């Protein structure tokens, strides 16, 4: 196949190699393992400073949750009629972010998209951490987090009532807990061969023990690989409908109610597209930082970043299309409450939130139609952040505009977040970043064995000179 590349250099332009610099398999082990292998004492100071900052913010989260648990959820700004406020906004926001990890690891795997290999490990880790952050909000919104086991169908003596399985809130418990568990199993399955690589490279006793334990005695036997690939395919196959179901079920929390602006059948696909949109933006933010600080330009190439930007463009446009459909249906349905809700959304008291969301989610990503912009690191960094601001506003707009202005003007009210609301949300960002930093320091950020597999096929497509040339 190398002959093809030589005959047609334009192919290099459209399909550049995914691993640059013509590395050997050993180079790849070295490249990824040496990031995490130095002794604790040799970790750069900037890492500790960053970790110190994020860990302090996580401490703030702990303080806020303790304060809430001992006082009551009145410390949040929730009121009547806004019973779901920042907490459910943040819950949907974090769950949505997680969805990109599963999309990258499962859906792109089924579509045989080789460019997923350099980014799937960190995206999957991001999923786990985002779902952890998400879980905090409904848990503390119950007001009595120590009674959380009431959410699960566990026989118990302190009340004899079973869960109401007709409620989408119970479906949510099942969907989110299944999502976390399956994502964890998928992530760990992918990690096992890499842990074996680290085990075999380990020089210190403690690393030999820890990696020896967690690699489960993996030795890369061909018989094992065959079962492993079958398992990976099954996990990808079930994660694909799972990820679509999770945000669909989250949207049922809204869609099965009778509130104007919520009671619509468009919600499941619209929520899923928004989730993937925000999640890809978050993966982008984290990867750009990792790429800069750890010099991963040869593994996370411009091709990877550009492909992700294309997905952000597609999902952002789907979200924009969903916004238009909502407006159209509000008008076309002839339902006066629905019409009022949407006019109120755009021109009512929350107009600034609604227009932030339209700007960040619909207009700004359209810049990615231009190759110059979608291959510019600064542009993509800024858009990755505005996207997440926009998607946070989307959830806030859906919740706040509908609840503050429902059918009866006598029950109209407004929502103001308290300082506890703000610090709790900030705290989950701290927790998310802390977990990610710890992950990046102690586990391989890039799937070593999968990148080697990509390299093995690319070796034939790209002769050594081509690899050098592009690098």
């Amino acid at each position: 196949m190398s002959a093809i590349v030589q005959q047609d250099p334009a192919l290099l332009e459209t399909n550049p190699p995914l691993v640059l610099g013509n590395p050997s398999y050993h180079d790849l082990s070295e490249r990824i393992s040496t990031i995490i292998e130095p002794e604790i004492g040799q970790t750069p100071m900037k890492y500790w400073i960053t970790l110190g900052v994020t860990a302090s913010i996580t401490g703030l989260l702990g303080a806020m949750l303790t304060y809430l648990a001992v006082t009551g959820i009145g410390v949040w700004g929730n009121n009547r009629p806004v019973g779901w406020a920042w907490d459910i906004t943040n819950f949907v926001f974090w769950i949505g972010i997680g969805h990109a990890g599963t999309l990258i690891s499962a859906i792109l795997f089924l579509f045989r998209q080789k460019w997923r290999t350099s980014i799937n490990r960190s995206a999957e880790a991001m999923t786990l951490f985002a779902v952890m952050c998400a879980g905090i909000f409904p848990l503390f919104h119950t007001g009595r987090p120590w009674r959380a086991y009431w959410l699960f169908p566990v026989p118990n003596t302190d009340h004899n009532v079973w869960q109401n399985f007709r409620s989408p809130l119970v479906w949510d418990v099942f969907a989110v807990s299944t999502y976390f568990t399956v994502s964890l199993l998928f992530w760990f399955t992918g990690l096992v061969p890499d842990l074996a690589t680290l085990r075999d490279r380990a020089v210190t006793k403690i690393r030999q023990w820890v990696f020896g334990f967690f690699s489960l005695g993996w030795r890369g036997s061909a018989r094992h690989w065959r079962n492993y690939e079958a398992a990976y395919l099954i996990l990808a196959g079930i994660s694909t409908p799972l990820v679509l179901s999770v945000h669909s079920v989250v949207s049922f929390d809204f869609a099965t109610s009778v509130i104007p602006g919520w009671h619509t059948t468009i919600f499941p696909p619209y929520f899923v597209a928004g989730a993937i949109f925000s999640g890809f933006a978050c993966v982008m933010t984290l990867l750009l930082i990792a790429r800069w600080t750890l010099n991963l330009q040869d593994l996370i190439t411009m091709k990877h970043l550009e492909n992700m930007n294309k997905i952000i463009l597609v999902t952002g446009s789907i979200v924009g299309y969903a916004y238009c459909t909502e407006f159209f249906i509000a008008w076309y349905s002839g339902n006066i409450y629905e019409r009022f809700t949407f006019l109120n959304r755009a021109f009512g008291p929350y107009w600034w939130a609604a227009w932030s969301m339209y700007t960040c989610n619909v207009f700004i990503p359209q810049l990615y139609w231009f190759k110059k912009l979608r291959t510019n690191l600064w542009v993509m960094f800024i858009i990755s952040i505005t996207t997440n601001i926009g998607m946070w506003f989307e959830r806030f707009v859906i919740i706040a505009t509908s609840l503050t202005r429902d059918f009866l003007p006598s029950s109209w009210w407004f929502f103001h977040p308290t300082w506890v609301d703000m610090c709790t949300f900030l705290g989950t960002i701290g927790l998310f970043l802390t977990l990610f930093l710890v992950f990046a320091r102690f586990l391989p950020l890039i799937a070593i064995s999968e990148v080697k597999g990509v390299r093995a096929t690319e070796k034939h497509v790209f002769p050594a000179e081509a690899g050098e040339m592009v690098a």
Partner: protein
Amino acid sequence: MAVPIDIDTLRDKLGIGDDKVYGAMGEFAEPEDLVKAGRKIREMGYTRIDAMSPFPVHGIDDAIGVPASKLGWIVIFFSLTGTAAALLLQWYAGAGPLNTFLLKFGLSGYPLTIGGKPFFDLSYSIPVDFELTILFTAFATFIGMFAINGLPRLYHPSMNYRNAHRATDDRFLLVIEADDPNFSPAKAADDLRSVGARDVEVVEG
């Protein structure tokens, strides 16, 4: 009741011991060479061949005769168990009219009347049915895959090969196992050398 453990029987069972041979092992630098060599070794009449590689090698299953994975059959059984468990759970938790029957067994559901909705219906049970199917499938896949592979384990005789640690890095190992009917240590090692393997060793169990 204490079962007396006979070390020698146990060693025999596990194929471990000073007098035991695990097989002949050699290494290759490229996956393509491994596949070519594997195929030649199989053509020589060996049946118990294994390979070790840092990533799944394309074509090796066919070359050395790795049987297809049976994992799917195990998993589908547990997937359906998950669906059944979800249906049973929701039916039981809400099934009012059956309470007197269930009470005889000391079990009580709790029929909640909410909005006049039925105590059980297939339509509202679908999300939980789906999630539990997926959950059971994931556990069956994860546990099943490692169980079929005989993992986790702390020791494997292939670890005695001098380059065993490179099988997770950049070397592709080929093994002719000692339980192959055609195996004799010197012959197997020579056969491995003849197909281009380097650092060939007869590895102890």
